[in-house]
């Protein structure tokens, strides 16, 4: 029987070792796939230039990150979560329920959402209303809501090309999708009588909108194969693929860094990360990382992250945000509403 005994001993040892592992000096970060490239750049720099180990970053999506972050305090929970939108009040409430009461919000800068196509096509200029008509699950026709009947762009407006409506976009877990729904769908439908003055954000599921997964590169590849289609993704991917892709103007504004930073381009969003102050004693590297992220050499006008597609906030906003992080300013529910 000694072999069975040995097996049990090994298994027991493995388990014992696991539970014995305690204390960590490695910062744990989760959250948005949009913030992930910036966050991991800072983490790498942090690991290479300080004595601390490089933080571990998982790309879980903004919602997934908030869920892990708000699971509670201690060893197994992340110290920082990245988000490509503000924390939702419901998420904050869940945090508080689980004892995560002292959170600092750090505002990093902006990211634009591009509505792009293959550069083999003619340039396109759409309004948010037209985008809404093309993508909403139900649209008003003669004052009544019906299932979206449009299959060609030209059916919506004669100025639009005579091409089939096919749009590759992110799934519902993505912060990009949340932002698109809010900034395009909701904004366009708020004033439409048919929806009773409330924003309508349901995206059609009859095949015209194609859920392409969290990987933005996949959308980029599909656009070069299917030149009739459009894609919705983060601005940094448009910048990196400027030779094959072309961003459409929305409400007459082209997606350029200046237009996104000034808010002139309507589909731009703010990016954040959230710090769990209650972990400060166990994870001393956490604040150092946060301060490095907020430094001018990262998020400033000529910072490294700009080269990766981050659109810096105006100078005084950056300074305010930096100060909030340095002072470990506590986030209140009223801030989020």
């Amino acid at each position, binding site marked *: 029987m000694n072999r069975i005994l040995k097996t049990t001993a090994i298994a027991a040892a493995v388990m014992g070792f696991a539970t014995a592992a305690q204390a960590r000096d490695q910062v744990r970060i989760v959250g948005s796939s949009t913030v992930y490239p910036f966050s991991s750049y800072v983490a790498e720099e942090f690991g290479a230039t300080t004595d601390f180990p490089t933080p571990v970053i*998982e790309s879980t999506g903004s919602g997934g990150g908030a869920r892990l972050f708000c699971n509670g305090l201690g060893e197994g929970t992340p110290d920082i979560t990245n988000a490509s939108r503000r924390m939702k009040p419901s998420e904050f409430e869940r945090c508080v329920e689980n004892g995560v009461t002292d959170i600092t919000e750090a505002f990093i800068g902006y990211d634009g959402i591009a509505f792009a196509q293959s550069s083999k096509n003619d340039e396109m200029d759409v309004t948010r209303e037209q985008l809404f008509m093309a993508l909403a699950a139900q649209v008003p026709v003669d004052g009544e809501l019906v299932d979206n009947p449009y299959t060609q762009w030209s059916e919506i407006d004669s100025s639009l090309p005579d091409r089939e409506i096919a749009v590759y976009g992110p799934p519902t877990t993505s912060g990009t999708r949340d932002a698109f729904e809010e900034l395009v769908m909701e904004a366009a439908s708020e004033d439409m009588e048919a929806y009773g003055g409330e924003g309508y954000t349901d995206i059609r599921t009859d095949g015209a909108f194609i859920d392409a997964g969290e990987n933005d590169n996949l959308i980029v590849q599909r656009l070069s194969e299917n030149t009739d289609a459009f894609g919705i993704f983060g601005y940094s991917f448009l910048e990196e693929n400027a030779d094959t892709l072309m961003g459409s103007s929305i409400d007459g504004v082209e997606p350029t860094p200046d237009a996104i930073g000034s808010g002139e381009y309507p589909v731009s969003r703010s990016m954040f990360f959230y710090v769990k102050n209650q972990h400060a004693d166990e994870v001393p590297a956490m604040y150092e990382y946060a301060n490095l992220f907020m430094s001018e050499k990262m998020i400033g006008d000529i910072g490294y992250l700009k080269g990766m597609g981050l659109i810096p906030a105006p100078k005084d906003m950056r300074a305010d945000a930096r100060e909030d992080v340095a002072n470990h300013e506590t986030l209140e529910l009223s801030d989020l509403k």
Partner: protein
Amino acid sequence: MRQSFDEISAQLKRRHRKSARLKWMSMGALGLAGVFLVFFFTDMLIKGLPAFQQAQIQVQVDYNEMAQEIPLAAVEEEVRPLVSRGYLRLIPGRMEDNADLLGTTRMEWVLADGQVDQYLKGHHNNLSASEQAVVDELAANGRAELKFNTTFFSRGDSKMPELAGIASAAMGTVMTLLVTLVVAFPIGVMTAVYLEEFAPDNRFTQIIEININNLAAIPSILFGLLGLAIFINFFGVPRSSPLVGGLTLALMTLPVIIISTRTALRSVPEDIRHAAFGVGCSRWQVVRDHVLPVSMPGIMTGSIIGLAQAMGETAPLIIVGMVAFIPDVSATITEAATVLPAQIFTWAGEPDRAFTEKTAGGILVLLTILITLNATAVVLRKKFERRW
């Protein structure tokens, strides 16, 4: 009923035609699979081979006081955008460690920026025309070259394509698979031995058998959820560690090992058992001294194939947090780590196009290891196989 000779020969012809058709069809299927394989390999080789080379440039590095504050100041303005940031940021640290460096100027081969690398390889890049001219001039003077990419094998992940390597992922894979092997192999083999040699054949063992066969076909992501619930949330195993990854993959590999071990045990002729019992061996002695040694090649083959399958797995590891950005090469099984397929997945999502070749290069390395593992399985079987 009597058949005429003509009828018989016509029937024979039909049957021959039928078998010829079948032969062509199966050859066609094989050919199609072959074409896919060749296409895939060529594509990977064309895209991936450049990853094993990396551009380096020779520049004058001036270790002055200013470089301690702003590393960019250490190199001439003209080549500043061409030198990797990953090299520059280490200069202040190196000057601190070695005080003699201050005030010296040296010609050094340094890692070039990823864009220079892409330009020299003739790929898409973001260099401006004037920067390209500088690189051209450096290349003409033998000061810019593509050299063997040691970084790719010695470093972990990075946001800078010229610094990105597979070392941390490879190390993570090794540690994860070790945990899997240590846990799954003994448990799997002992389970199979019990079921095959000791257990009575009743309703209970039949139910267990059906369940094991079912487990082998369950989508791997479910094992990830199980691992999250049991190992991380209940036992408190550190998230993202090779330990939790290995345990999760062990759950997944167990049924494969159990099933292949049982098959191997069953193929041992009854005569051997009878002979051993005949000379008075106990059941345990029969198994330990006779049945197990004879069936070992089969067990090894099954386990290696199970491990190779576990090695290519990403889905359950996403759930336990092993798909993450890990630049440091981890040394213990409780530190955060990632694995090769997860690294490939991460690179495939990078916006920077220089990562395309890294992705393909990573796939080539993974394929090489998988082929080696499977070849080992074949060799083991051939070498120790006994025919009865």
